[in-house]
């Protein structure tokens, strides 16, 4: 896994990295280039993306296809039910 991805995972999953100071300390020991550090510090996703040469291109996020009314099953008899609060 690339160092940038590892840092992003760490930032997203370590609750102690909840302020700029803690993030800066973590970045000091991360094996990143100056440009990557700058992109992360300035929260510039586009610049960060430029630093990963084989970053996959995402053309489209998964989108729902709206059902036509004649495709929707009408449930007239519910035999079982579950409650999950």
């Amino acid at each position: 896994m690339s160092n940038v991805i590892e840092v992003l995972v760490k930032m997203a999953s370590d609750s102690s990295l909840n302020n700029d100071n803690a993030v800066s300390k973590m970045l000091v020991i991360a094996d990143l280039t100056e440009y990557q550090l700058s992109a992360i510090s300035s929260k510039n996703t586009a610049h960060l993306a430029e630093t990963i040469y084989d970053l996959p291109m995402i053309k489209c996020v998964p989108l729902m296809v709206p059902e036509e009314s004649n495709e929707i099953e009408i449930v007239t008899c519910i035999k079982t039910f579950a409650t999950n609060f």
Partner: protein
Amino acid sequence: MSGSLVCVGTGMTLGAHISPISQSHIEQAGVVFSLMANGFAQKWLEGMNTDVRCLQRFYEEGKNRNITYNEMVDTILTEVRDGKKVVAAFYGHPGVFACVSHRAIKKAKAEELPATMEPGISAEDCLYADLGIDPGKTGCMHYETSQFMFYKRNIDTSAHLILWQVALAGDKSLGKFSTGKAYRQVLVDLLLEHYPRDHEVILYQAKGIAIDAMRDEKILLTELVDAELFMHTTLVLPPCSTMQPNEAVLAKLVAIDKKEERIKNGPELSLVL
């Protein structure tokens, strides 16, 4: 050996939301098919398994998404039929606003192939946390925007109304990646039948990676036409009216309460033979 399919969600924010069971499924899969929301998440997934196959190649602007999604389902099912332990990983929740997973599981089950789904943290979950909305407070209605426009709906303006995929408002072709101002104006006109012109609405986007900021941009309803919208932008309409008591139902409930009170306070009867 029989193949199997598990559809998992990786959550919205890379690294923060994936569940232990979903991560384990990905790590132990024979093949992982993926639909992520950004390149970082795709790259992250590729670090978890040596055979991750991105389904993005099926998307084309102008191509009906029904065709795209059926091709994705067929690709996934081919590997399951081939006896492989297949995982299909989707960003967010695999079963919320994601028809590929539902179609793949339905088709696999019809062929008596084992197929299950593991939930993930969805955009809806993030929305409640980020915007401080509790759907249990006054209720919450969710619609896919185009479907909301195509069909007559009973809108309850005392509940939150949340419209997903607002950037594709009114797309009948199912092939566009966004629709223009004219389409959005139709949506705004429809909403103005129920909401005042100066009603404040929210454009919401969950954060995808740690350095992103979530979007909670407040605009007037009429400003939606010119707003910057992305595929993953969601429109939130807070309530503009108060809940109206249902007097008929309340009267019935009062009658039941009174009856139960009488039984509770009445004399204890004993059977004398």
